[in-house]
């Protein structure tokens, strides 16, 4: 009986929950402006999330998934990317999407039930929100394969949850990325819950980073409530990938402070006490404490930021609410590049039904 292989999983922590340092700062973090940018992005994300939940509660938006407490994963990941990289988010990465240039109004448009919200003016090659858990992992492998075949120094970055690591295609995509040495970075946003299922009921694996081992690729864990650490670890993975050294799996450990979505009531399955305890670790207060301690931040700037974020969100909400619905024929006009002849009858039927609906509404 002899040992034939050995594997180690490491964890990176930089900023402690109280804002003090647990390890050396990465180079980018020496620039206070960079840190403030990260801070602003997290605050904007939280402002957006809060507003989106409120809009849902008042019937002006569909179901939404808040990223409360997880902002560092999304923002840190996006900040580690270059514009020409491609993001493949799941449904809780608004922080990353906003960083990359998706507009608040577009997010609202999508979650308000309108496909036009995924026609981003900003990152044109980024994927839209992926709702079926984990099904975008193979897309990321495809995007990364495209980059590799074209010899472009670009990276596909896929973000998915702890629950998603139970999906077969996520493993399959990691395995492919390994054997084809693809420029693909997979960030597992381990917020400890998949709706009501805690990560301990999802897998017996001690870490989610070790999901990489079966794919023959490196896996690493990072404190996902520390935006500096997330950005540093993901950046290292991305640069490795960009340099042709292959994929990495990054597990970012965080906590879902909100309900799963506005359709969920988390008190049915977890204790308030657990949630309160986790509030102490959330990423925004932590970075604020650091910035304050270093003198990079103050109350005035905080107030100005909150006002800015509120204004940006409010303006977007107004624009979103004011936008009329698309014509009903949009549902058929964008399915194929050119409407197949046999569908032209159905297009006419859609027009007819839309007119009937308009009359019904008018008739009431």
């Amino acid at each position, binding site marked *: 009986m002899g040992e034939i292989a050995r594997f180690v999983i490491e964890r990176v922590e930089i900023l402690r929950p109280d804002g003090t340092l647990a390890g050396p700062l990465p180079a980018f973090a020496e620039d206070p402006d960079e840190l403030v940018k990260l801070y602003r992005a997290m605050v904007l994300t939280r402002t957006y999330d809060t507003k989106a939940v409120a809009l849902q509660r008042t019937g002006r938006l*569909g*179901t939404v998934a808040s990223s409360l407490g997880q902002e560092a994963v999304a923002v840190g990941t996006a900040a580690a990317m270059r514009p020409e990289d491609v993001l493949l988010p799941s449904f809780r990465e608004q922080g990353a999407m906003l960083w990359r240039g998706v507009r608040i109004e577009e997010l609202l448009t*999508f*979650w*308000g*039930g*309108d*496909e036009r919200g995924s026609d981003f003016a900003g990152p044109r090659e980024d994927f839209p*929100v992926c*709702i*079926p*858990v*984990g099904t975008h992992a193979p897309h990321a492998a495809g995007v990364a394969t495209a980059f590799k075949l074209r010899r472009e120094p670009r990276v596909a970055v896929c973000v998915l949850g702890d*629950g*998603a690591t*139970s*999906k*077969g295609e996520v493993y399959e995509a990691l395995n492919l990325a390994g054997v084809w040495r693809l420029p693909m970075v997979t960030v597992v946003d381990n917020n400890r819950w*998949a*709706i*009501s*299922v805690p990560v301990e*009921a*999802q*897998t017996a694996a001690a870490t989610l980073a070790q999901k990489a081992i079966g794919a023959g690729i490196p896996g690493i864990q990072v404190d996902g409530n520390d935006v500096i650490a997330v950005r540093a670890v993901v950046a290292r993975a991305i640069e490795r990938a960009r340099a042709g050294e292959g994929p990495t799996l990054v597990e970012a450990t965080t906590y879902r402070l909100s309900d799963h979505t506005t*359709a*969920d009531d988390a008190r*049915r*399955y977890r204790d308030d006490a657990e949630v309160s305890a986790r509030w102490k670790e959330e990423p925004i207060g932590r970075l604020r404490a650091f910035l304050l301690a270093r003198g990079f931040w103050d109350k005035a700037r905080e107030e100005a930021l909150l006002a800015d974020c509120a204004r940006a969100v409010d303006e977007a909400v107004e624009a979103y609410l004011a936008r009329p*619905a*698309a014509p*009903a024929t*949009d*549902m*058929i006009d964008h*399915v194929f590049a050119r409407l197949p002849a046999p*569908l032209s009858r*159905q297009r006419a*039927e*859609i027009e007819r*039904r*839309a007119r*009937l*609906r308009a009359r*019904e509404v008018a008739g009431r």
Partner: protein
Amino acid sequence: MSALTLVEAVRTALARAMEEDPRVLVLGEDVGRDGGVFRATEGLFERFGPERVLDTPLSEALFTGLAVGLGAQGFRPVVEFQFDGFLYPAIDQLVNHAGRLRARTRGRLSCPIVLRAPFGGGIRAPEHHSESPEGLFAAIPGVRTVVPSSPARAYGLLLAAIRDPDPVVFLEPKRIYRAFREEVVDDGAALPLDRAFVLREGRDLTIVAWGALVREALQAADRLAEEGVSAEVLDPATLAPLDVETILASVGRTGRCLIVHEAPPSHGPGAEIAALLAAEGLFSLLAPVARVAAFDVPTPLPRLEGVFLPNVADILEAARRLLAHR
């Protein structure tokens, strides 16, 4: 006897089935402490414990195959899919294993499993949460596809599905989960599978509808009655194998058939019913067989859903067109 909503009827049937047969298990995502995202399994975890109500890891392909293994061992797993849009990974296991395990082993092993899922639109839900994929399942040999359309039928058909020794896909119209109540006697009486329900008798026109649209079909029949038209309303309930005889008999009498469903029009159970009439009921037809359905496009997000989904006005309009044929 009490007035239940459809989702309560589902829950009542699940509890009854678990009570009467220890081989019945409930599994899926969030079916345990959370009671399912629609609360269809609420209270079952507390009552039957973690060995009868099992939250699985997040994978539909996995838990479908898991159910096949449990079924082969004599358990009767009832698997909840959270939404229609997450049913597709089950198809591989359904076609390649569930639907043929009995045939493949000449009955040595079998597959007494039920896959339950809420389906259909009209609740302004996010992408992938408003699909009507019944056609894909109805086309799988060896598997029954059952769609209830009221609390009482949900109760009786779900009991039948669970007790049935073969695989059943059970699609629950989520739009009417809580839309109305109906008296349901929790006496353990199952309703027959493979049999269409004649919900209203009529002479001039047969409306065949299933799922959430049965209500609209009945409303349309009421309105038509006011106009002096007598419409029969059929709910096939088991979409596959389809109760051919009842449909043929009805249309044989009325001479007109309108098929109403939320799924896209083409290549599904609506087509099958029309095809049946074209093959075996042709000479009793007084009017074309019409379908009122969605469109052959991906289900749009909620803002356009009102046009995608058919409603009472569409049914009435189509019915009147058929009735114009004398």
